[in-house]
């Protein structure tokens, strides 16, 4: 790696002041696991990095807010999420996914904010958070704003963040806690980056799906909601973990038709489309099994 300036602010306002809206070579660094790879490959050559590690414990807190929403601090590590009783109680789909996300060493340092800001489509967490209707809390020079996860990530490694903004956390509304599941499919080795990630979140009452969120990730440029599948699931009845054949066929068709799959080292677009047709039903079954 080539030399750069490393700044270590102690407060959020101080950190924001060290970023620059007009300089692509200035970026915040949290756990650094993703940025270090880009720097080693000279894909990203920083002039200045602003470390978020010294911003204090508050920015990494995992807690419930007054409305009962689960708040994950921007600098909370993936290992902290994995160990959190609050996450297990309010978003168990995250707890179940984490042991299979990257590896122990990366989870010890990689952060929630970093997983979102990096916007690598192969990451699991953004797809899950999008299915949970999570909102990203963002601080910038003009103050604070929030964005839904699926609006934050706009494309392949692209976000709606300005260069002088910092993700301070993610809020998962209590109302979005339904029957949720995430299944990913790796094609080369069990711990490879996924070729496909499918997250579903079903709000159910008495054998009926009242509302559904269906999100496809990894196989696409960005986590992608499948509105046709969500519409097909709305009002559908189930017994045990089984949906009507007509409903699952409609969901499969929507997932195959509506989503723009991409070809890469993990597989061709056609292959991923077929993976999605199969895995969407497995994911729905896993969600209904609870």
């Amino acid at each position: 790696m080539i030399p750069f300036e490393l700044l270590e602010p102690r407060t959020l306002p101080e950190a924001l002041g060290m970023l620059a809206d007009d300089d692509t070579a200035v970026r915040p660094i949290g756990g650094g696991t993703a940025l270090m790879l880009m720097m080693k490959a000279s894909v990203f050559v920083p002039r200045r990095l602003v470390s978020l590690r010294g911003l204090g414990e508050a920015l990494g807190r995992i807690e419930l807010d007054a409305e009962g929403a689960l708040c994950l601090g921007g600098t909370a590590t993936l290992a902290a999420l994995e160990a959190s009783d609050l996450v297990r109680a309010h978003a168990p789909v995250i707890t179940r996914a984490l042991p299979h996300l990257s590896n122990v060493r990366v989870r010890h340092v990689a952060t929630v904010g970093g997983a979102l800001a990096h916007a690598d489509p192969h990451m699991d967490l953004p797809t899950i958070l999008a299915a949970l209707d999570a909102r990203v809390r963002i601080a910038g020079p003009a103050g604070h704003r929030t964005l839904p996860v699926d609006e934050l990530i706009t494309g392949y490694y692209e976000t709606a963040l300005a260069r002088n903004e910092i993700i301070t956390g993610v809020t998962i509304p209590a109302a979005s806690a339904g029957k949720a599941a995430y299944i990913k499919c790796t094609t080369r080795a069990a711990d490879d980056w996924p070729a496909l990630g499918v997250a579903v979140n079903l709000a159910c009452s008495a054998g009926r799906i009242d509302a559904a969120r269906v999100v496809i990730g990894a196989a696409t440029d960005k986590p992608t909601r499948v509105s046709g599948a969500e519409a097909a699931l709305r009002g559908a009845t189930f017994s045990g973990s089984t949906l009507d054949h007509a409903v699952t066929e409609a969901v499969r068709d929507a997932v195959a038709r509506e989503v723009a799959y991409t070809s890469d080292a993990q597989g061709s677009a056609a292959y991923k489309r077929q993976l999605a047709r199969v895995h969407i039903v497995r994911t729905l079954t896993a969600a209904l099994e609870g």
Partner: protein
Amino acid sequence: MSVATRTIHFTLNGAPVSATIAPHHTLLEVVRDTFGLNGARESCGQGLCGCCTLMVNGQSVSGCLTLAAFADGATVTTVENLAVDGKLSPLQAAFIECGAFQCGFCTSGFLLMATELLESNPRPTEGEIRNHLSGNLCRCATYPEVVRAVQLAAERMA
């Protein structure tokens, strides 16, 4: 561009140390090049293989992905710290007994990861062992022997 250096202070294998570093140096480079501790090695350079595993504040990290500057004030331990007064740890002894390596390049990483596991979970299941070590690669494929060694060490430490 002139490179701004800084001095970091940290605890390395129980002793207070300081090092002059540049911001782009990794902790792995400092541990090896400044302190001559060559147990941790850079192999994949991408955090995937575990050969560069170091313990920072009691947690395993990939030394190749950790900026040395982030270790300022931290407690760092390496595989060289496992043996006490020349006596191998029970896990190290079990690795030898089970033949849990061939070339040995990956062994320091496996030892630190498995030591970490046994500290938090003294009687892990085979699945828990495999999961904790899933980010460590052994190109000699001694995985069955590694799992057996961790189980043997767990039995002996019980």
